[in-house]
């Protein structure tokens, strides 16, 4: 079974730091650096601009101040006796146009002549010093009379141009740019985070999925322009989940309709359908998912009547149900249960073998069904055979042991008794030998190693010999044993030894199962195709229910009259096997209580048939 993860190309696990960076830190750091650079650039620009502006302002102010001071000095020098009012008038007039803060006129001898504004007279220092921090320009200009006489120095304090306004403007512009940059970064950052975090989560999910830690992949939630990618991804994992579910369903019902459907029209299915024994598969719910025709025939139901039904319901046997439960519970060893059913004249036994499906995860069980009725029948026949063989072996053994012991006893040493003992020992030894021979023959026939020693067989002579051999037993029971033969019978190719056993069994059986005073007629007929030897008796006959079985090995009818006669149930089985090995067969006609006719038919070869025609 293929792992679902193998559908993906291998993904190289990301290093933690890289994963961490991808998780939003790196973009944030990069963004912050970018913002910092922009802010630094703005700040540097501001400082440079401020510096140059300040320089320019100072130069302009100085020019203004120099012009102003020159104008004041000229104006004051042109007056004969300028007083403070004059100075005030001049200064106020000028201060309207210039940012004149104060004026001090110091005489050549160092005495202070005029001050504007007058309240500064008391101040020892210029206003520029008193108001530290203000940007003021202080200039000293000599004052001369119109004749050129020095009249002292004029100290003016001039306020710098409107640099506050400029700075505000600069700050507003530069600050705005920085603020906008920060805002842009924040927006970018937010957007990046919104997109990268789900992607990073998906990557982690993929790694976990591939490693088998997680069974499902995360869905992707993205909006805006990446929404189509997210929808594609989500559709993909939905399809993957559906496929995995289908796989799981198929695995759970491995022998279920899914697999059964897969089995359709495959070579394997055709082979399984033709198995000589029943095969039943169930799903995890113990319902039958497959049954081959043999199973249906053995359970006497149509295949459609099996599939879909619980196995325990179809096979109504508690031991089978228990075995099914055991297999379901994981019992790996196959369990075997024999189920015997009886109707009025037939007993059949089915052997169920129950074992779990090879793949434990899929659940379900496999049940094979075999008809072991014949096996049981064979076992019974064998037990019966052993019973009779034991009985039959003990009889000659008893005689041999008892007569042998008799020979050793001092009271039994007369000639007649010894002779009698020896005769019994010899006959019983022969009997034992024949019995062993029969058992060996039947064993050979069972394993298929029986071979014929083919030669020319004079059937007429052989039949006469066999009748002769049974005359003693027939006379003992007062049975009239007769033989009817044509004047000439062709010699046939066959195994004389086995044919003599065959005929002896047929004639011997007729004598054994015919009551005293009965008749046994042996007749031999020849036509152009075959030799027919019939053994007809007026014996106990064979019941119709026993007739089909009399040629089976070890079979003996349960009839009291049959059981009263010693026998192993081998004679007729051996006889028919020998007949069939010669290409012929034995047929039975019988009526219970009236007698039987066993007819042996042996085919003639073309040469033998020609001999018959030539007569």
């Amino acid at each position: 079974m293929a792992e679902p993860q193998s559908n993906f190309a291998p993904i190289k696990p990301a290093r933690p730091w890289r994963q961490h960076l991808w998780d939003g830190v790196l973009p944030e750091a990069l963004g912050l650096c970018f913002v910092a650079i922009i802010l630094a650039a703005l700040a540097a620009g501001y400082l440079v601009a401020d510096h140059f502006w300040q320089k320019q302002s100072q130069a302009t102010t100085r020019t203004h101040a120099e012009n102003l001071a020159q104008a004041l000095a000229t104006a004051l020098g042109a007056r004969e006796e300028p007083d403070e009012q004059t100075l005030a008038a001049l200064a106020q007039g000028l201060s309207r146009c210039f940012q004149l803060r104060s004026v001090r006129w110091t005489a050549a001898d160092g005495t202070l002549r005029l001050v504007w504004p007058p309240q500064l007279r008391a101040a020892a220092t210029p206003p520029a010093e008193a108001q530290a921090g203000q940007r003021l320009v202080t200039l000293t200009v000599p004052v001369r009379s119109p004749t050129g006489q020095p009249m002292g120095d004029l100290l003016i304090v001039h306020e710098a141009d409107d640099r506050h306004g400029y700075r505000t403007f600069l700050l507003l512009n530069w600050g705005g740019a920085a603020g906008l940059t920060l805002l842009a970064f924040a927006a970018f950052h937010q957007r990046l985070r919104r997109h990268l975090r789900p992607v990073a989560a998906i990557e982690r999910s993929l790694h976990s999925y591939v490693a088998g830690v997680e069974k499902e992949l995360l869905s992707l939630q993205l909006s805006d322009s990446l929404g189509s990618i997210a929808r594609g991804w989500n559709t993909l994992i939905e399809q993957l989940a559906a496929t995995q579910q289908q796989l799981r369903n198929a695995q759970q019902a491995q022998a279920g309709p899914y697999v059964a459907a897969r089995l359709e029209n495959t070579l394997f299915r055709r082979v399984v359908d033709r198995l000589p024994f029943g095969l039943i598969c169930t799903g995890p719910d113990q319902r039958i998912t497959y049954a081959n025709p043999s199973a249906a025939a053995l359970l006497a139901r149509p295949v459609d009547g099996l599939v879909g039904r619980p196995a325990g319901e179809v096979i109504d046997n508690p031991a089978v149900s228990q075995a099914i439960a055991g297999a379901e519970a994981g019992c790996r060893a196959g369990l075997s249960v024999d189920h015997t059913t009886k109707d009025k004249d037939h007993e059949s036994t089915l052997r169920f073998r129950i074992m779990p499906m090879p793949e434990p995860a899929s659940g379900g069980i496999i049940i094979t069904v075999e008809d072991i009725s014949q096996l049981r029948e064979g076992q019974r026949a064998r037990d019966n055979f052993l019973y009779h063989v034991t009985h039959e072996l003990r009889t000659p053994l008893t005689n041999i042991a008892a007569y042998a012991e008799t020979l050793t006893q001092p009271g039994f040493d007369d000639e007649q008794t010894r002779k009698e003992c020896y005769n019994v020992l010899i006959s019983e030894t022969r009997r034992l030998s024949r019995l062993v021979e029969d058992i060996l023959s039947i064993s050979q026939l069972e394993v298929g190693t029986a071979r014929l020693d083919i030669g020319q067989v004079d059937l007429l002579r052989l039949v006469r010999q066999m009748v002769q051999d049974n005359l003693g037993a027939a006379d003992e029971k007062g049975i009239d044993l007769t033989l009817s033969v044509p004047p000439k019978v062709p010699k046939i190719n066959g195994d004389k030894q086995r044919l003599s056993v065959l005929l002896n069994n047929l004639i011997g059986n007729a004598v054994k199962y015919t009551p005293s005073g009965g008749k046994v007629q042996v007749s031999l007929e020849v036509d152009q195709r075959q030799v027919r030897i019939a053994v007809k008796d007026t014996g106990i006959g064979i019941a119709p229910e026993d007739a089909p079985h009399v040629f089976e090995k070890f079979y003996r009818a349960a009839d009291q009259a049959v059981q009263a006669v010693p026998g192993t149930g081998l004679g007729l089985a051996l006889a028919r096997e020998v007949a069939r090995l010669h290409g012929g067969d034995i047929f039975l006609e019988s009526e219970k209580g009236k007698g039987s006719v066993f007819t042996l038919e042996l085919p003639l070869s073309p040469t033998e048939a020609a001999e018959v025609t030539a007569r």
Partner: protein
Amino acid sequence: MSRILVAEDDPHILRLISMWLTRHGHEVIEARNGLVARELISTQPVDVLVSDVNMPGMDGLNLVETVYGTGQVRHGVIVLTNRWDHGEIGERLADWGVQVIAKPFSPSRLSELIESMTAGTRRAGRPAHSAGTPDQQSTSQEAGAP
């Protein structure tokens, strides 16, 4: 001398037992099946019954059942069998005091058993009992039955 009836369908075994018991001075009555044996016993009681189990007509077990308690077998019953379930037969007939001997058997042991049956009864001075009575069982044990 005791009257002993031997019921056996195998002529050789019948002849052998008859030969042995005759040599030991007993009167032997032969029967080739259970029906004949029952008929003979009913006309003339016997001291000991020796019977095979599997016989045509009436088997040995039915024969023993028929004569049990009738007083027609005075000293005891011995059953010979070549059946593989002779142990079960022995248990089944133990309550009736019947001795079961599996084939192949030793004729000398059989003779000894019959001698002990008849001699023990005579030694105890008891009147004859029918086969299978409690007295018969005790007699068999007293006689040292195997």
